[in-house]
C-alpha cells in the first residue's frame, strides 16, 4: 500500500450526510461505498439514496439497524440505487417508492475484504472507499484527533456502528484511518472520525466489505 491515501482529494466521496435520529448508519456506509465504486468504475460521482434502502430493503430494519451484506443484496435485487435528489432522506421508514426507471447506478456483486489492515489499505488505495463496522465507544464525545481507546473498552466483538473508510495516513507518526461518519458535518472533524490504524482498534477490520461494479 502507498504510505497514505485519501479518496476525498480524488473526488470519490460525497459530502458528509446526517442520519438524524435513526439507526441507519448501515445504509449510509453502503451508499458511500457504492458512490465510490461507481465513481471509480463509471467516472461520475453521484450522491445516492439511503432512504431507498430504509424503505425497500426488507431484510434490514431501517432505523432499528441493518447489515451492509444484506443491503448489497437488496440493491442488486431491486435493480440499483436512485440518487439522493430523486429519493431523498427522511430519517424514518416510509412505503417503498423505488422506480427502476429512476435508478442511476447498479452493482454486480459484493465482496468481503481481508481482516489484515495492511491488505485493507492496499485494497482501499487501489479499489476505493470501504464499508466497515466499528465499536462506537467514545464517539458520543469525540471532537477531533486520532482516537485510540484501550482495547477492553472498545472491544472488536461489540460492533454497533457502520461507517466508511475513505483514506489512511500518519499524523506525527501515528497511523490512522480517515472515516466518513453519517452524523452531520457538525460532529467530529467536519463529520470525519480518525481512528488508530494497525491494531484492529474498535474492530475496524472485522466487517470490511465492498460492492462490485463492473
Amino acid at each position, binding site marked *: 500500500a502507498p504510505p497514505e491515501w485519501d479518496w476525498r482529494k480524488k473526488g470519490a466521496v460525497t459530502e458528509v450526510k446526517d*442520519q438524524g*435520529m*435513526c*439507526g441507519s*448508519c*448501515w445504509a449510509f456506509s453502503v451508499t458511500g461505498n457504492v458512490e465510490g465504486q461507481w465513481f471509480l468504475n463509471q467516472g461520475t460521482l453521484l450522491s445516492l439514496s439511503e432512504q431507498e434502502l430504509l424503505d425497500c430493503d426488507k431484510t*434490514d*430494519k431501517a432505523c*432499528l*439497524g*441493518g*447489515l*451492509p*451484506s*444484506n443491503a*448489497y*443484496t437488496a440493491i442488486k435485487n431491486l435493480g440499483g440505487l436512485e440518487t439522493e435528489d430523486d429519493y431523498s432522506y427522511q430519517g424514518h421508514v416510509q412505503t417503498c417508492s423505488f422506480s427502476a426507471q429512476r435508478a442511476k447506478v447498479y452493482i454486480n*456483486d459484493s*465482496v*468481503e*475484504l*481481508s481482516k489484515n489492515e495492511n*491488505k485493507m489499505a*492496499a*485494497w482501499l*488505495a*487501489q479499489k476505493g472507499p470501504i464499508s466497515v*463496522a466499528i465499536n*462506537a465507544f*467514545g464517539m*458520543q*464525545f*469525540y*471532537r*477531533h*484527533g*486520532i*482516537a*485510540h*481507546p*484501550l482495547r477492553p*473498552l472498545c472491544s472488536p*466483538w*461489540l*460492533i*454497533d*456502528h*457502520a461507517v466508511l473508510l475513505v483514506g489512511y495516513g500518519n*499524523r*506525527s507518526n*501515528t497511523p490512522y484511518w480517515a472515516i466518513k461518519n453519517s*452524523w*452531520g458535518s*457538525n*460532529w467530529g472533524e467536519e463529520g470525519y472520525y*480518525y481512528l*488508530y490504524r494497525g491494531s484492529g482498534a474498535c474492530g475496524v477490520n472485522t*466487517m470490511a*466489505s*465492498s460492492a462490485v461494479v463492473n
Partner: protein
Amino acid sequence: VPAKPRADDEQAWDLSPPELLAPARFALDMYNYGRAAGMRAVLGAVRGRVRRVGRGSLFSLEATMEEPPCNDPLVCLLPVTKKTMLCSFEVLDELGKHMLLRRDCGPVNTKATEYGNETFSSFLPMLNKDPLPQDFSVKMATVFEDFMKTYNRTYESKEETQWRLTVFTRNMVRAQKIQALDRGTAQYGITKFSDLTEEEFYTIYLNPLLQKEPGRKMSLAKPVDDL
C-alpha cells in the same frame, strides 16, 4: 447530627437519616425521571456521608431502590419477583440547589451493574476522589447554557431541563474519563450528543444488529496484489 464540625473540607462524616432526606429524595427523583406513575421505584434503606466542597456539600449516598413488580405477563421474566437495586449516588448541594453527579446501580447480590456506568471505576478511581472546583454547579450550568445555544436545544419543561443538565454534567465526567484512557491524540468533550444518556445514544443512533446477526456470507475479495 454531624459527628464532626463542618470545618475541614477534606473530612467526610456519616449522616443521620433526617439529614439524608433532601439529597436522597433528589436522587430518587432523578432515578425515577421519565417513569410513569406505578412504575417508579421507592427508596429502601439509605446511608451516606458528606464532605464540604467549595460553597456546597457533596453527599455520597448508598441506597436500595425497590423496583415495582412487573405486571405485564408478555414482558416479565418468570418468576415474577420484586427487584431490589443497590445504588450509589453523589449529589452536590450548592446553595440549596441539587445536582446529581454520579449514579451507579446494580441488582443486589450481583456484581452486574447498569449498562456502562461502572466501566471506568476500576481504571480511574482517582477521578471520583478529586475535589470538585468551587461553584461547580454554577459553572456547569453556564457551560450547559452555551451548549443549548450552540446546538439550538429546547426542552419541554423545567424538570426536563434539570434532568438534561444532570445528564450533561455526568457526560462531561464520562468524556473526561474517556479522554484520560485514550492512547491516541483524540480530544473528547462537548458534542451535539452531550445531553443524551448512554442508553439514549445507543438506542437512537447506533445499530445493534451488527453484533447480533451474522448477515449474508459474501465471497472473499481477491487481494489487490493478485490482480
